[in-house]
Every structure is written in C-alpha cells, then in structure tokens.
C-alpha cells in the first residue's frame, strides 16, 4: 500500500473538515472539565495534581470521550452521506481501504487533539490553583494517552456504524445508549474491566487516592478488551465498507 496516496486522501479529508464546526466540539469537553477543576475543594488540604486529575477526568472520561468518538465518526461520514459524497469519492482512483482508514485516522487524530487540550487545561488549572509541585508527568501523560487508546475501539465501531447508516442521529443514539450504562458499570469491579465504553474513564482515572498505578488500565483488560474490540470493530467496519453499494 503506497503511503503517498493515503496521505493525499488524508489531506483531502482535512480540507473537508476544516470548514465545519467540528473544532468547537474539540474544545468543548476540555473547557467543561475546567469547571470541576476550579471548584473542587478539599477542606484544609492543599490542591494536588491527583485530585485535579480525578475531578477533571470524571465527566470527560465517563461521558464526553465515548460520546465524542461517536460524534466525530458521524460528522466525518455526514458530509459523504448528504449530497452524494460517497459516489464522488469512491469513483476517484482510491481504494476503499485507504478511504476508510483515512477517515479512521481523522477521528482518532481529533480525539488526540481533545486529549492534548485536556492536558493543557489540566496543567493550566494546576498552575492557577498552585498545585503541589512537582508535576507528576508520567501519571498525567499516561492518563491522557491511556484515555486516547481506550477510545480507539469506540471510534472504530462508530465509524463502522456511521458509514453504513445514512442517518446522522441513529449512530449517535446507539453511541449514547452504549455510553449511559457507564455510570453504573464504572463502579462495578465485575463488569467494569470488560465494557469497552467505560475503558476511557478507567484509563484516565488514577487508581486509588494516594499511590497511582503507572498505567491506569490493568494490562490484561487493555489487551483483551481494548485491543480485541479494536480489531473486531475495525475489521468488521472495513468488511462492510468494502462491500458497500454506493
């Protein structure tokens, strides 16, 4: 597979995205996370990075990251569904595999930007609230990176669904209905490790109050749930897109 043509398709995708409101969504969740970060108070104790990370990542990891994975996928397919974009795109000299993967790369790149912005907001908040030095870089970076990794299968599933359904709302409804159970499952030691939609939250939340695990997801859960579902969803999506009648 020649990479040149793949990056050209990506460049084309970037242009399609650039004039849309997708950027507002990228800022949304990190901006909202500022709120709990600014308001969290622990009586008499000084503000720690761990505290900031855990309060700021709750809504972000539990709700916004999984939901955004779906919204980005739906948006990236929407302008193809709307006015014959698939026909236009797929009658150009491109392979369906490259088109599909370029869309996937766009989604996970957007999620990557979201995570970077989250990190910036977290660092800013720590600086403003004078959190105890030094900055625990490895913990923060693993949290942000782990959250991103845990989103990869969700993005793959949502892309698979969004390319197949021309409706914009249906994939989002599916996504939200799979995300809502997070609220219950996040606290369940039995089901938590195996539910893909709760993995971003688990990956981002520091384990325990004092000592943090280096990587917040237990390795077997990461391997089985995240990697396994990523492969299943990505391959299934590619298979259906390959056979899609346009």
């Amino acid at each position, binding site marked *: 597979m020649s990479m040149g043509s793949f990056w050209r398709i990506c460049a084309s995708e970037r242009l399609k995205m650039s*004039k849309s409101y997708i950027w507002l969504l990228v800022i949304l969740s990190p901006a909202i996370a500022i709120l709990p970060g600014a308001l969290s108070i622990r009586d008499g104790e000084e503000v720690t990075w761990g505290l900031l990370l855990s309060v700021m990542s709750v809504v972000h990891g539990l709700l916004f990251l999984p939901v955004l994975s779906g919204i980005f996928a739906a948006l990236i397919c929407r*302008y193809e569904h709307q006015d014959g974009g698939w026909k236009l795109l797929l*009658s150009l000299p491109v392979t369906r595999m490259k088109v599909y993967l370029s869309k996937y790369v766009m989604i996970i790149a957007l999620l990557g930007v979201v995570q970077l912005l989250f990190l910036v907001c977290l660092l800013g908040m720590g600086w403003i609230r004078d959190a105890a030095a030094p900055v625990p870089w490895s913990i923060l970076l693993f949290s942000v990176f782990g959250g991103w990794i845990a989103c990869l299968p969700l993005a793959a599933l949502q892309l698979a669904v969004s390319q197949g359904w021309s409706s914009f709302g249906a994939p989002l409804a599916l996504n939200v209905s799979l995300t809502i159970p997070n609220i219950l499952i996040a606290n369940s030691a039995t089901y938590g490790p195996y539910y893909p939609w709760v993995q971003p939250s688990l990956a981002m939340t520091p384990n325990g109050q004092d000592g943090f695990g280096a990587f917040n997801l237990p390795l077997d859960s990461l391997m089985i749930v995240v990697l396994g579902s990523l492969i299943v969803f990505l391959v299934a999506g590619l298979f259906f897109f390959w056979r899609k009648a346009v």
Partner: protein
Amino acid sequence: MLNTEVKNMKDMKNTVIETKDLWKKYRGRAAVENLNLNISKGEIYGFLGPNGAGKTTTIRMLLGLITPTSGSIEIFGQDLRKNKLQILRKIGSLVESPSYYGHLSAVDNLEVIRRILDVSKSRIPEVLDIVSLTGEEKRPVKGFSLGMKQRLGIAAALLGSPELLILDEPTNGLDPSGIQEIRSLIKRLPLEQGITVLVSSHLLSEIEQMADTVGIIRQGQLIYQDTITNLQQQAAGEMRLHVSDPIVALNLAGHCGYDGALREDKLIFSRMNDARVALLVKELVENGHSVYRVEEHRQSLEDFFLQVIGGGEA
C-alpha cells in the same frame, strides 16, 4: 439487430468500454440484464432509456461503485476488477444528482478532489472556466442553483484531464439555457480534447442532438445499439403498398431487389426515391397485381423510440 455492423465498427476503431453479458440482480430481480455495451474512442455515446431502465445501475458498475452479479467490464482494454485504480484515474464522472460538499466553496470542492488526483493547482481555475463558474468559486456550494451544482460536477469530472467522461443525466433539472450550455460543452470535448463521452438521458431529443452512437436500454436490456445516423434512417419512414395479392407480390418484389415485409396485409418497404417506387409499381402491375394504394408513412424519431421502448419487437 445490427450486431454485425456494430462489431465491424468496433474492430476498425478502438474500443474504450466493452461489457460482456453484464448482469446486476437485486433479490432475484434483474436491474441490468445481459448487457453488451460497445463504446469507441472519441465518440459521444448516448445511453438512452426511460427512468428506471438500468442506466444509472450500469454506470455505477462501470465506475466500480457496485459489483456486477455476473459478466465482465473492460475499459481501455483492461479488466475493471483487476486494474480499477489505473482505469478510474482516466475517467471523470458525474453520477445521478450532482455530488458535492455543501459547506465548502466551489474551489474547495475541487481542491478536495485535486488532492487525491494529485494534479496541478492550475487545473482548478481552468475547469471552472470551462464550465463558466468563474466568479462564483468562493461561495459555499449549498447556496448554488441546481444548474451551477451540475456544472461544478462537470468541472470536477474534468479536473483529472480524463480520457473518458461518464455523465449520468447531466442536464437533469436544468433550465433550457443551462441545457444548451452543457450540451455544447459536451459536444466540444471530443473535438477539442479527444475525450470519449458516455452520456445518459431519458430524453431522445437530448441524445439526438449530442451523440454519435446511441444505445437504448429498456428494463435492463440493451435493445438497440447503433449510430445515430442509422437510427435516423430507420426512423425515417416507410412505403406501404396495398396490393391485391400481398404474399405473391412480396415475393416478386424480393426477386426484383426490394427488401420488404408484410404487415397487416400491406407490403412495407423502407423509404425509397420516386424512381424506385415507380419501378416497383411497374413491376407489380406488369405481373398482374392490382396496386390499390401507395402510401408514404413518415415516422418521427420520437415514434420510433417509443416503439422500441414499447417493446413490440424486442
């Protein structure tokens, strides 16, 4: 019908599109049935048929957007299944309603395609100029009229300097001046740039004014494929002779070199000049036939088309 002639034409020129026994079935129902298209280099091929006859389905197969149920497609002498990318690189297309990204301007729409085709940036103003959209290129396309979107679609199809242009109902929904504009644009392309054009329409008048060769499709079957000149000749009209003993008379006429047919007890001949009519009548009378009536029946191309589409003979 005139398959041998078509075959000879094909051998003389270079074939750009050739489909063999092409089928597309949806749940057992055939949308395209045993289709054998033959399109030569540098010609405008008019693909004619009523709505729902299978034109768009065929075009989608030619572009690899859907896979045929059976049969083969060769474009530029290569198998579409094996060399899809090389083939598509040389095709510009516009399928059904115009495709575009509404939130982007005309220039950005073309840029999206240009980045994939990897052609020079200077092609964008060039193709905008060809379809006369210069001056409108910065507005979001969602505000364009249908005609402008259609023209943008043609500009997009031309962007990669294709050797083959496939335009599906390019004048659909346009006003008369827009139709005129697109028609003259399509007619110019083979002359100026040597492009082969496949243009579909459900209107005979459209095809008649543009195409060199016409293929008529009905209920998924190609029921007529020949040059537009031959089509016009066939539709030109016929002579009808009402005589006393038609069967014997037909035989006699055949011996004298008049190829005719019998319909409703009348002898039917293709149109001929006055001298030949006179000679035929003379032969008949001299051999003891009574000639009651000699009629010239003129048929418009439209009638002919409707007759073919109506499926009397297919």
